[in-house]
Every structure is written in C-alpha cells, then in structure tokens.
C-alpha cells in the first residue's frame, strides 16, 4: 500500500499566488491530497482554495507559519495521512520536487526530508542579511548536533507520521527552523536533505518579514539552546 500524502499549504493573504500553486501541485502530483491552512487572512485566500476544491482550515487570527503547520499536522494525523509536506503558497516551493522530497520518507530512510538549497549548487541567492542568518543557524545546528544540515531555514519539508503526531502538541510557535531541527534530532528522528531549487515568490508578503528584526535571531538562538538542553527522549 502506498503512503497517503497530505500537502499542507500555509497561507496568509496569498490570494494572488495560491491558485497557481494548487494547480501546479495537482498537475505534478495528482496522487497527493491538499490542505490549505488559511492563517487568518484578510483577503480571499480561503475562497481561492475552495474554488479549487481544496479543503480549508481557517485560523480566526494569524498564528504564524509554525501554528499553521501545526494545524496541518493535526489534520493529517486525524485523517490518517502517513506523510505531511509543507508547501508554501507563494510559489517559492516548486511542486516538481515533491516526488524527490517524499522519496526518503516514503522509503522509510528518514522521518523528515528537507528540501535544501545548498546540498548542490542551486540558483537561489538570498539577501545578505538573510544569508548571514542562515550561515549562523547552520552553525548553531552543527554545534548542537554534531551533524551538518545545510539549509536550516528551508520550509519545504516532508514529515513522517510519527513526527507529525509529536509536533501537533509541541512545536515552535512562529518559525520552525533551527530549534525544530535540533529538537527533532534530539528526539531520535532521522533527517535527510534533498537538493531543490527555490523560486522567487510570486506575490504576497513573506512570513519572514518580522524575522528581519532583532527578535528572530534572538528567539531562534534561545529556542535552539533550549531544544539542545532538552533531554533526548
């Protein structure tokens, strides 16, 4: 029996790009189910999803991408899915990579598969400040785990059922980046990276605008430390 896959699309004010993301995903991966988690949008995000026949779970207020993903995990677990994939609505995550991303989890080689921009040379060039942050958190993760994860900020990931079952209760609230990876490895989950190419976002606002402030690095460092201090299960 093949694994049931749910593609979770967290969306906050993404009416402009959501439709195309859903269509593309359907086209390249007709065997997976879709779920849009509308994270308190003020635009027609939910309507766009419904118009495409995709189920929508709508937060009354904006919780951030972590909260949206957590809702998706819970839905996936309750509806008996084996794998959950985060796919951003803005078009940065190319659904063409879904089969490659899913493969390690499907084959039981890993619990979490990360669509990574740095495993091989892919075209993506982030702004300098962002790149600095990425390098720093890759360093933090390496320091904490002793293993190297090249792309700690990539949201394009596939999560196995056991990971989703745990994460629906305990999950970083806003940005599921370095602290989550540390937490997962400490709990004995196996992570692999799969090379992907990311595209420019099509429209809408990045979830990560707030991350440019001082708060995000601070929060991520502290959360990483806490995740590292946590006793392995």
């Amino acid at each position, binding site marked *: 029996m093949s694994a049931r896959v749910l593609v979770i699309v967290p969306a906050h004010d993404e009416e402009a790009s959501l439709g195309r993301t859903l269509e593309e995903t*359907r086209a390249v991966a007709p065997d997976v189910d879709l779920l849009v988690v509308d994270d308190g949008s003020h635009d027609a995000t939910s309507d766009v999803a419904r118009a495409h026949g995709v*189920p*929508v779970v709508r*937060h*009354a207020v904006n919780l951030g991408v972590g909260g949206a993903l957590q809702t998706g995990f*819970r839905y996936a677990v309750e509806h008996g899915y084996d794998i959950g994939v985060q796919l951003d609505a803005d078009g940065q995550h190319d659904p063409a990579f879904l089969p490659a991303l899913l493969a390690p989890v499907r084959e039981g080689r890993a619990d979490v598969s990360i669509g990574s921009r740095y495993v091989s040379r892919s075209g993506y060039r982030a702004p300098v400040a962002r790149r600095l942050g990425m390098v720093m958190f890759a360093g933090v993760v390496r320091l904490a785990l002793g293993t190297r994860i090249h792309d700690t900020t990539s949201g394009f990931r596939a999560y196995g059922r056991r990971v989703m079952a745990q994460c629906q209760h305990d999950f970083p609230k806003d940005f599921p980046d370095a602290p989550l990876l540390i937490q997962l490895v400490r709990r004995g989950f196996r992570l692999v990276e799969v090379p992907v190419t990311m595209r420019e976002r099509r429209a809408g606002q990045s979830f990560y605008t707030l991350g440019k402030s001082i708060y995000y690095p601070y929060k991520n460092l502290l959360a990483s430390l806490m995740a590292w201090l946590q006793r392995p299960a």
Partner: protein
Amino acid sequence: MEFLSKTQIIAALGAVGMAVYVLDLVRRRRLSEEYSLLWLVSSVVIALLGFSTPLLRWITNALGILGESSTVFAFGLAFSTAMLLYMSIKLSRLGMENHELTRELALLRHELEVRTAPPVRPGEGA
C-alpha cells in the same frame, strides 16, 4: 507612634489605601482572588514598614541599607518585579492557550463545514 518623615506617613497611608482598594476590587469581582494575593501582600508589607518604625529600622540595619526610605523602595521594587514576572508568565500561558484554541476552533469549524455542506468539486468553482 514615631515617624521618621512625612514620606513615611504618606507611604503607610497609601499602602493601606491600596490594600482597601484591592479588597474592594475583589469584592466587586473586578479582580480575581489569585491576582489579588501579591498586591495585598505587598500593600500590607509596605504598610507595616510605614507604621512600625522599629521594624523598619531593624530591617534596614539587618540588611545594611543606608537609609530607611531605601528599604521601603527596595521592598516596593521587589514586589513590582515579582508582579511583572508573574504577569509575563501568565501572559505567555494565555498566549499558548489562545494559540491552541485558535487551532482547535479552525479544525472544528472545518469539520462542521464538511458535515453540513456538500463538498465543492474541482472545476465547479465558487
């Protein structure tokens, strides 16, 4: 009764007023018993320090504080800090509960929509 300064009297009376106000808030159900505790304890302690100069002197000497007024301020500040930290903890918990409820509500609402309305098939469009 001996007072060291006018400020001591003002602090003492102010603390008593505060305690009475806190109790009244509880009576009118504007403040829960839980939150009243720290307020009440801090008002009573400040009032005690204000009305009992020997006690104030003794604590000041025992802690090696230079002036009696500093002792009163130190206690006030300690209580304020405790209160703020307590509030931050409470706020964090409220935030987490809120987070949880938002997600729960979203899933329940989705469940309700699925049960009450026939699903829209792709292509039919809204």
